[in-house]
């Protein structure tokens, strides 16, 4: 435990075993859970792991995974973002109304939506950090404001439609010889995932996110601008919600319920990935794994013929279990 103790020399085999154990411990347990669930699905339905169906599965996961990858920044920084579901809905409804199926609109629409998402995140962040409103309330207020504003503006029901070139991101993909279609959504998920992973785990900013959530006082006294870091985390979450909205809009089309419940699912995915509410712990990779696990459990339940509504119940049990496991591990390690 102390710095100066050298590892005792032992037989090579023992050392190798220890190394394997260490490696195994370095892998967040959620990946093992995900692997087990996928094996179970493949056992019931062997075609699932063939390229085509598996890529389709990943496409289905993409919106939630992107949301989770954004949410994990906010949670590591020690806050919540409850407004992402409403933001997803807003993206779908606003895009439909503004473009009304016009393909030419897509190219200015997407930057506009991203800017709006960043703006929502900025407001969340500023209200939380400058006005010191707990993020739970601040983002709850944003949820109400977004829901109200979007439908006030669109007159109560979503109108218009999405152009095909807008929907392509969630619907279509690149034809690959032999593999079938590689969905754009999967490419976007990989790009967003890698980008956010680099940002969180390999950038100065990322380290400051962990510090701001882990011990805000110590971080501030080391020169970390805690308020700015937290605000940027909200902006990232807002941007991720816009990307998720675009993917979901392509996938499911225009509905007023596009984003309903996604805020809780995103938080659940992040918690499933081992992050701790209150800040300081978590990772993009584990959050993505959490989202994939959640979706694959749904798929498995489907295969087992469980009623759709019972999925909610199982999801509830899973996140309680995951959080209890994380709490137990934290306590055991002191």
């Amino acid at each position, binding site marked *: 435990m102390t710095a100066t103790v050298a590892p005792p020399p032992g037989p090579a085999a023992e050392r190798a075993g220890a190394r394997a154990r260490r490696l195994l411990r370095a892998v967040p347990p959620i990946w093992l859970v995900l692997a087990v669930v996928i094996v179970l699905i493949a056992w019931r339905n062997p075609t699932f792991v063939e390229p085509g169906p598996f890529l389709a599965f990943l496409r289905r996961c993409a919106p939630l995974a992107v949301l989770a990858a954004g949410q994990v920044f906010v949670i590591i920084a020690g806050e919540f973002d409850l407004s992402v579901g409403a933001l997803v809905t807003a993206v779908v409804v606003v895009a439909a109304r503004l473009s009304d199926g016009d393909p030419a609109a897509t190219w200015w629409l997407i930057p506009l939506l991203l800017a709006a998402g960043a703006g929502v995140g900025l407001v969340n962040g500023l209200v939380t950090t400058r006005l010191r409103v707990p993020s739970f309330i601040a983002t709850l207020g944003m949820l109400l404001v977004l829901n109200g504003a979007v439908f006030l503006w669109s007159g109560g029901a979503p109108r218009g439609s999405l152009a095909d070139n807008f929907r392509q991101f969630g619907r279509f993909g690149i034809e690959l010889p032999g593999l079938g279609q590689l969905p754009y959504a999967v490419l976007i998920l990989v790009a967003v995932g890698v980008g956010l992973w680099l940002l969180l785990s390999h950038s100065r900013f990322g380290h400051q996110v962990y510090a701001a959530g882990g011990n805000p006082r110590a971080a501030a006294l080391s020169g970390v601008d805690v308020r700015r870091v937290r605000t940027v985390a909200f902006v990232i979450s807002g941007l991720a919600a816009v990307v998720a909205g675009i993917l979901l809009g392509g996938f499911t089309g225009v509905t007023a319920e596009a984003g309903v419940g996604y805020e809780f699912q995103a938080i659940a995915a992040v918690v499933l990935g081992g992050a701790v509410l209150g800040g*300081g712990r978590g990772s993009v990779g584990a959050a993505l794994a959490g989202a994939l696990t959640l979706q694959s459990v749904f798929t498995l339940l489907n295969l087992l013929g469980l009623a759709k509504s019972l999925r909610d119940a199982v999801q509830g049990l899973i996140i309680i279990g995951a959080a209890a496991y994380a709490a137990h591990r934290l306590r055991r390690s002191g």
Partner: protein
Amino acid sequence: MTDDNGARGPALLGMHGISKSFFGVPVLNDVRLECFPGEIHAVMGENGAGKSTLMKILVGVHQPDAGRIELDGTPVRFHHPRQALAAGVSIVHQELNLLPDRTVAENIFLGREPRRRFTVDRTAMDRAATRLLATLRADDLISPRALVGRLPVAQQQLVEIARALSYAPRLLVLDEPTAALSPHEVDTLFERIRRLRADGLTVLYISHRLKEIFDLTDRITVLKDGRRVATVRTSEVDTRALVHLMVGRELDHYYPPRAAPERIGPVRLALRGAGAGPLHDIDLDLRAGEITGLAGLAGSGRTELARLLFGATRMTSGSVELDGRVRRLRSVRHAIRSGVGLLTEDRKTEGLVLQLSVRDNSLLAVRALGRRAVRRVGLGDLLDRVGLRGSTAREVRYLSGGNQQKVVLARWLATGARVLIFDEPTRGVDVGAKASIHELMRELADAGTAILMISSELPEVIGMADRIVVLREGTVAGELPAGASEAEIMLLATGEPDRRAAAVGATGAGGAA
């Protein structure tokens, strides 16, 4: 000097062979403590000697790894503070544990509110609280309905003591109760403690302040590095002997040599007429190559001054010069960028992000500065310089206090800070690490860093500082050269010629000479 085993009837409390380790670091080793009815018994030792841990074991907050505890000769084992309270052992912890949003009476009787049927009997509760406060002669000072958060700290302390007394204890433990009190408040507190003893209470008094121990106690148990050194009658020792027991070696042994005058360079940081909050009219020069010691009683503004220099509190008057140029330290970031670093008093809450690794904690400040700053830094080189070995991926919460302090130090080496403020640099650090931190400080100074060292341990100030600045009531009371005596420092710090302090200081300096 022989041990006083106090062969006078049965002991009220006996702790025998108590040992305890945290995370593999031994904190207490085979400690014995005996306490007789009606005495005020001091447990003393330097910071980190294990006093507080011993007391927490006594009242059931921690469980000992080995050893036994007896009350009136019967073995007891407390797994929860509740059990200790029921057995007649009350403690006032070093950190106040009160609910600021609740009233005095509600705090005192928390968990045991008097009831009438299902209702809390507030009238009875208030009356009982007033009675308890009256035993402390504080009933006209504190209303039982006052909100605790609105009381001054000295009165909150009395509420804590009243709460401890409400359990009708036979043994009362006071863990460094004077840390936040002014000298006058200390005197009144002692008056109250003596009165409690007259009423038959036995008191265990934890402190590292010699003056208080001589003023108040009957016998003294001295701890050092987690071991019991001796138990003596207060009347049979003088300060010199006691210091010798506590330190156990000549003071100058573990302090590196002071700076040679020619190595002291130009003024790096200068404060002129600075003020903010309790601070006013402060002039202070910090020179390259020099360690400036900052002494003063608790509440004199030491920590506030550190925060001011670090941009954590905004200056309301006066100016700061860094390397001869007037700068405004608008924020912590600004101060760091200007080359100032602060090692906070409390590493766990203000210094480190405990669940992050050695690497992330060491690079925290430099990463906050900017990309170019990060490129300059080699982590391995940095940790070599502070003498920290082992994996950089360990979470810092598993490190010992000394190694944690090295991580914080590495953080400021990384930013290339040229003015370093050490606020209680060796608090909670074991002796070996203490010496190496002192050596590091001296090396840094020799390399041209200007260092301000704030310490409440006068021997440390005297042993380390090339110059000693004493604060009193928010401003500089005076400056002393290297090697000044404790007496001289205390004189400036209290503002009144105090013979007892003078006597204490004389022996302290004598030990160092």
